[in-house]
């Protein structure tokens, strides 16, 4: 074999030559992750199990440390016990394995403080300095804001005040980064303000706005499907695509999150983040490379090409709804206004349908219909491209229904996969055409359990890879679109809520929105 061996390492100490050919990414540098809101639900259900799973698979560096920061009067020991409980309940690798816990448990610490109290941050600094000395974590810190969004500004300000965070150039020897959970603001002005506050403390390359949808394998596969296969991209434009439908439906109600949900509604909870991210991935141009900024540049361009809606357009192109009582899977469920801690006269939207246009060369004139809601019949997230009909209906028989269009569906959840519907001849003497579906299912073709989205995203943040995180301009652009809708809604009385029954596919007006254009929602 004539292969050139890699140069001896003395010539380059930057890269680890043993990494060549290994499918696993390199291990992040030793660091401390500080979780603000450490006693909250997200930490309990997602963050601690994700860190444990990463430890179990040895994806985290030796001496990695976790510090919880919250108001509850816990000690290290009570927080560790809580963490063990989280793993035993929610880890995909439960129960806790004693040999792993021996190291992982010891690396968990707790600081009790109010988020507004600077003394708590000074205490945190002392602890972090101590951990650096004891574990060689060298000042590498990942701050995870898993709190009420109202607390973000004060936390960030106090981190700065206590000398725990400062703007850093990419070449710095140590790093500090911040992961921020959605929502990033509640409208455009608040998003601008929040980004301004964060920008005073961290440079953009230190900020990781997390949207766990982007950590899902199928969402990442949208890019692979589009840009690694040559047969689809030529069809991916206004010449062939009639329209796009995106749906994110849930059978669940607000599940005890009434107070949060009532101030947000589905437009902020689902559309501004998850659906705008999906839309930008579906509609973006090919990036020049797969690095973080090239991908995010293209995504942002899509959002820029969607003009904010005028008040008249809001009336024409959006529908909001709120669920009333009904039946889900054969069980009676209450209406939104009867949910725990929801005002009985709430006008918060739990359903939204919207028609948008991406005004660029590729998509001009192609309507994009979004539909999302709670207490719909089932949980599903799909994006469907419906293609234009064949130019000449050669096989259409009088009296028969028109041939069904080709549809390419990307299913994000629950059954991740891709399917293509096309017409085929029914065997026999007559020319009968019936639609058939060609299915690809991740579970069937690869049979591999995908890692949890949080595991992937936390690891990416530690490695400094922000490709799957939202950038400031992306978030602001999405808010510009959503805020135009919110402003339009303010000018008009809300519909008479509740306007759809739990277990239905939403209000009649949602169907009218698409049927006015001579189209129909897909049957799901």
């Amino acid at each position, binding site marked *: 074999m004539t292969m050139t*061996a890699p140069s001896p*390492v003395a010539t380059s100490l930057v890269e680890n030559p*043993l990494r060549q*050919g*290994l499918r696993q990414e390199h291990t992040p540098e030793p660091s401390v992750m500080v979780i603000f809101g450490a006693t909250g639900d997200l930490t309990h259900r997602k963050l601690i199990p994700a860190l444990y799973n990463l430890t179990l698979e040895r994806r985290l560096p*030796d001496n990695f440390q976790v510090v919880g920061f919250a108001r509850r009067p816990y000690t290290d020991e009570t927080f560790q016990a809580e963490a063990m409980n989280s793993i035993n309940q929610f880890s995909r690798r439960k129960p806790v394995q004693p040999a792993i816990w021996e190291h992982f448990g010891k690396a968990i610490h707790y600081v009790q403080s109010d988020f507004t109290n600077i003394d708590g941050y000074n205490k945190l600094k002392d602890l972090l300095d101590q951990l650096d000395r004891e574990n*060689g974590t060298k000042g590498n810190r990942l701050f995870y804001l898993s709190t009420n969004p109202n607390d973000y500004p004060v936390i960030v300000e106090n981190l700065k005040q206590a000398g725990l965070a400062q703007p850093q150039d990419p070449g710095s020897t140590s790093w500090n980064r911040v992961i921020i959970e959605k929502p990033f603001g509640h409208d455009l002005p608040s998003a601008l303000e929040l980004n301004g506050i964060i920008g005073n403390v961290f440079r953009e390359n230190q900020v990781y706005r997390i949207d766990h949808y982007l950590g899902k394998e199928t969402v990442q596969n949208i890019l692979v499907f589009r840009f690694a296969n040559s047969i689809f991209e030529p069809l991916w434009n206004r010449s062939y695509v009639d329209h796009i439908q995106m749906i994110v439906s849930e059978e669940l109600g607000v599940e005890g999150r009434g107070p949060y949900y009532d101030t947000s509604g589905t437009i902020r909870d689902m559309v501004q983040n998850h659906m705008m991210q999906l839309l930008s991935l579906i509609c973006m141009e090919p990036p020049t490379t797969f690095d973080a900024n090239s991908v995010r540049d293209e995504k942002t361009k899509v959002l820029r090409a969607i003009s904010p809606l005028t008040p008249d357009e809001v009336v024409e192109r959006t529908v909001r709804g709120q669920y009333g009582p009904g039946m889900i899977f054969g069980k009676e469920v209450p209406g939104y206004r009867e949910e725990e801690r929801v005002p009985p006269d709430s006008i918060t939207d739990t359903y939204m349908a919207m028609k948008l246009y991406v005004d660029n060369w590729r998509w001009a004139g192609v309507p994009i219909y979004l539909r999302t809601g709670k207490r719909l019949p089932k949980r599903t997230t799909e994006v469907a491209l419906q293609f234009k009909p064949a130019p000449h209906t050669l096989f259409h028989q009088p009296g028969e229904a028109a041939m069904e269009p080709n549809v390419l569906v990307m299913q994000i959840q629950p*059954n991740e996969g891709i399917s293509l519907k096309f017409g085929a001849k029914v065997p026999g003497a007559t020319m009968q055409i019936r639609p058939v579906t060609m299915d690809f299912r991740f579970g069937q*073709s690869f049979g591999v359990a995908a890692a949890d989205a949080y595991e992937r995203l936390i690891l990416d943040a530690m490695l400094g890879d922000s490709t799957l995180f939202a950038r400031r301009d992306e978030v602001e652009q999405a808010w510009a679109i959503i805020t135009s809708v919110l402003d339009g809604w303010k000018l008009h009385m809300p519909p008479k809520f509740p306007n759809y029954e739990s277990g239905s596919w939403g209000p009649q007006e949602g169907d009218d929105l698409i049927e006015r254009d001579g189209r129909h929602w897909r049957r799901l």
Partner: protein
Amino acid sequence: MSEKVADKSNNNVVKDGQLGAANATAEASAPDEFELLIERGEARPIGIENIEKGLTALWQAAGKSRPGESDQLAVTRACVFNLVISVDGDQALAEVTETIAQLTWSYPCRAIVLVLKPEETQEEVNAFISAHCQLPSGGKKVCCEQITVVASGSDVDGMWSVVLPLLVPDLPVILWWPGDPVLHGTLFEHLLATADRLIVDSRAFINPVFTFSRLAELSSSRYSEVAVSDLCWSRLNSWRNLIAQFFDQPQYLPYLNQVDRVEVHYEAPDDNRHPNFSEALLLIGWLARQLGWQPAFSLQRKGNNATLILNRQGVPLTVVLHGHNDRVDELGGITQVNLIASHPEANPDEPKLASFTVAVSDDYEHAMTFVEEDESPLASRNFLFPRLDRTELLREDLAMVGRDRVFEASLELAGQLNARVKS
């Protein structure tokens, strides 16, 4: 070979392309066949010339809705490659059949299993078809097919001619030779000529010194268009990751160019058999390839222990293989690796030594890594280190699309080291 092709056309067999009892219609008997072949996974005898017809009939029957069942139970036939397997007896057939069934979850394929029994006096060829189905949650039943050809007699080498027409067109051909492969001869050469990939497991070699050298030769010689893989390489994936992880940390990276000694502990037999160094040599071959080490002197072997001297840019580097006998079911498997290195910037009169160790725990389910600098512990970590069974090893191997150049170069170097074992 005077081929006596068995077409056991009795009740419930495939006959003339139709499934069903010989005197019943296919329509009437299809549900029985469905149950036997799809649900119970039984193998059905069939004449060799009828295999394709039989499979077509099988899938037609499987695709029909059955009374009282929803469409969700419908069957999807899937195939991502041809998997040609050669085994030497009924026990091996049972084992590979089980592996194929499990592999369906991730790699539905057409499996063609040749069971060769040259030691039997009667020359006979029998064929069977069977299906392997999995039901993913919420999805359709995904099935793939297995064709088993049992050949006995002195002329089994001609069985390649049975395989060729059964390959699904336009799909890759994977030739998997479990056990101790015969990497030469008419049958092997014909099968290899159609293959895109050859998979063996060097841990199972009965004469590892000879067969491993042959494998290295195959990988680098005239068959270079065929990707060669060794399941030992899949076993080494975790080891390679763990060793690489030490040097992801910038403070340890300088040691990598100053490795003076490598110790590999492996499971060796406690009798007089020659120890199987293949896995250990493959690991050393990988380190040598990635770090620019060259084989230098002959290997000195004493029982299950051996010492090799390599050349690290003009400096001798010692590799010690320690054989021990704890797990007879893991013969050849690595249990511990130590890399000992001196820091390049340390004072030559007071060298600063570091040792990087990965060791499997006694339960063989966990492992520990630890780093020592001048005999002071710096870091240690426990983690899960599951042993992969044969199906998982195959999955790992098949996850590599195309050729694994790092493996091939490591195998070449391991082959050179192995040649020194011979001398």
